[in-house]
């Protein structure tokens, strides 16, 4: 029975990573109301950019993280400006945006594979710092950082959205883009900035995963879907409920692997998604 604490801790760690992805995804969804599948690819961009900085430029950890985040934020912003915004202006349907984001995802993932090869690579080869949690469980330095990061980012976002003018504008756009525009809010610019932040968060998640396990060009889809599931389970559109959903997903997944075998992980996650979509599409919390 002493395994349970470690399994739960593992679940929370996985949840932290999913939460970062879900935060960004939810933020963007709230402002634009479509499923941006390219979100997953931005995590891959972030992780691999960090790899390039560390390995090819030889710069330090701090630079790797900062440049990785900036790169993914930038590319996300560009995707909005040149693809999503024009489509929104034409009143394209959600399905068109979804397919366009699919195209972007495919292209970005393939470009990464060309630049970095498809081999599994890690940002941290070898030993990590181990931290003992009062004898109940063990985590690494990276994992603890991931958890702390989510807390900090979550808090930061909360403060921004609640108290700054920008935040108020974002909430206005999320509630009703048309009305916001009429009232004088520069919707397009706000949405662009939202994508910037959301994509940066996705990149950060990718970097942390790169340190925790490693990077593969194809990891974006799986990550994105976890983020989507977390968002829906938590409550789509509500930024913080996504965090709760992410932790729930992480814990359920790890409990599932503990009791059953690992190879059904993705199927279990999707099963959860479908169940929620059927019976509780607004998420676990009644808004």
């Amino acid at each position: 029975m002493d395994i349970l604490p470690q399994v739960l801790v593992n679940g929370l760690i996985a949840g932290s990573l999913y939460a970062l992805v879900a935060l960004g995804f939810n933020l963007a969804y709230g402002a634009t109301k479509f499923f941006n599948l390219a979100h997953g690819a931005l995590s891959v961009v972030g992780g691999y950019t960090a790899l390039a900085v560390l390995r090819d430029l030889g710069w330090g950890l701090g630079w790797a993280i900062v440049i990785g985040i900036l790169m993914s934020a930038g590319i996300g912003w560009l995707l909005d400006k040149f693809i999503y915004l024009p489509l929104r202006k034409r009143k394209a349907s959600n399905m068109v945006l979804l397919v366009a984001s699919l195209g972007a995802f495919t292209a970005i993932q393939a470009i990464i594979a060309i630049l970095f090869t498809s081999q599994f690579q890690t940002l941290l080869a070898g030993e990590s710092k181990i931290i003992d949690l009062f004898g109940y469980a063990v985590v690494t330095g990276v994992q603890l950082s991931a958890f702390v990061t989510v807390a900090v980012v979550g808090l930061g976002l909360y403060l921004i959205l609640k108290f700054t003018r920008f935040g108020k504008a974002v909430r206005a756009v999320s509630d009703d883009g048309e009305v916001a525009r009429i009232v004088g809010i520069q919707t397009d610019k706000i949405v662009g900035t939202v994508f910037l932040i959301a994509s940066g968060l996705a990149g950060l998640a990718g970097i942390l995963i790169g340190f925790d396990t490693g990077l593969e060009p194809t990891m974006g889809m799986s990550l994105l879907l976890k983020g989507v599931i977390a968002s829906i389970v938590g409550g789509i559109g509500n930024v913080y409920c996504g965090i709760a959903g992410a932790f729930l997903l992480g814990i359920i997944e790890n409990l599932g692997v503990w009791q059953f075998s690992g190879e059904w992980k993705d199927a279990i996650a999707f099963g959860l998604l479908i169940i929620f979509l059927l019976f509780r599409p607004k998420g676990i919390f009644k808004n």
Partner: protein
Amino acid sequence: MEYLIHIAILAVIYGILGIGLNLVVGFTGLLSVTHAAFFGIGAYATGILLTNHIADFWGSLGLGMLIAAVLALIIGLVLSRFRDDYYALASFGFNTIVFALFLNLQDITRGPLGIPGIPRPEILGYSFGENFSFLILALIFLAAVYFFSKWLTESSFGRVLKAVREDERAAQVFGYNTFYFKLAIFSTAAALAAIAGSLFASYITFIDPSTFTLHESMFILAVIIFGGLASLRGSIVGAVALILLPEILRFVGFPAEIAAQMRQVVYGLVLVLLMLYRPRGFFGEYKF
């Protein structure tokens, strides 16, 4: 020459897949991204039954279509509760679940090992071992699927499908049970995909779960978007175009490692550009 025959056979198989998916996406307006699952069912039915000598190609074809159709009814039932992008998302889920089944029910499918040594079809002692004769067989199937679909979409049944696509509420007001129509076309398309699957398994002689992933479903979607939604002719054109594209890349001289990834880049760009500038595709008459 042999090479062209190989390309042609693949184009025909994906043409069949495209036509089937177009019935659901282009004609009925349901963004289904799980077609590869039914493709896989047909392929595995043929693979398993032929290598274990339980049935011949034609028997496995029939069984594959049946299983695909039944599975589609179940999946379709659940999917019918969703709209638009949620429908697409849920269909992702089903593709993933079916893929997990292919991968993990190793007693039946041999999982990641795949099923090697699948024989070619035989009829009255004649074996379609020659690639050219297989191409003829595949073309016959394509023609059958094409004319069947043409008849279906031009019939009154087809008109209801288009009505559902344009305005489901209105169709319901007119007394049509749209639920049954959507389910029926989804199931039919699945059976057509299974035909492609059986052909594929027998041609390549080896199948494994890696062919029947979400990626594959997305590729088939790209084929019909490119060729044109709600255009049967377009599905075939799209299949030919998207199968030829990587081969052209190979000849242009991209090194092997890069060529495969470049193909993905091109597909991705094609999708983005199509959505931006011609969402109905080449011959399409509908854009979502």
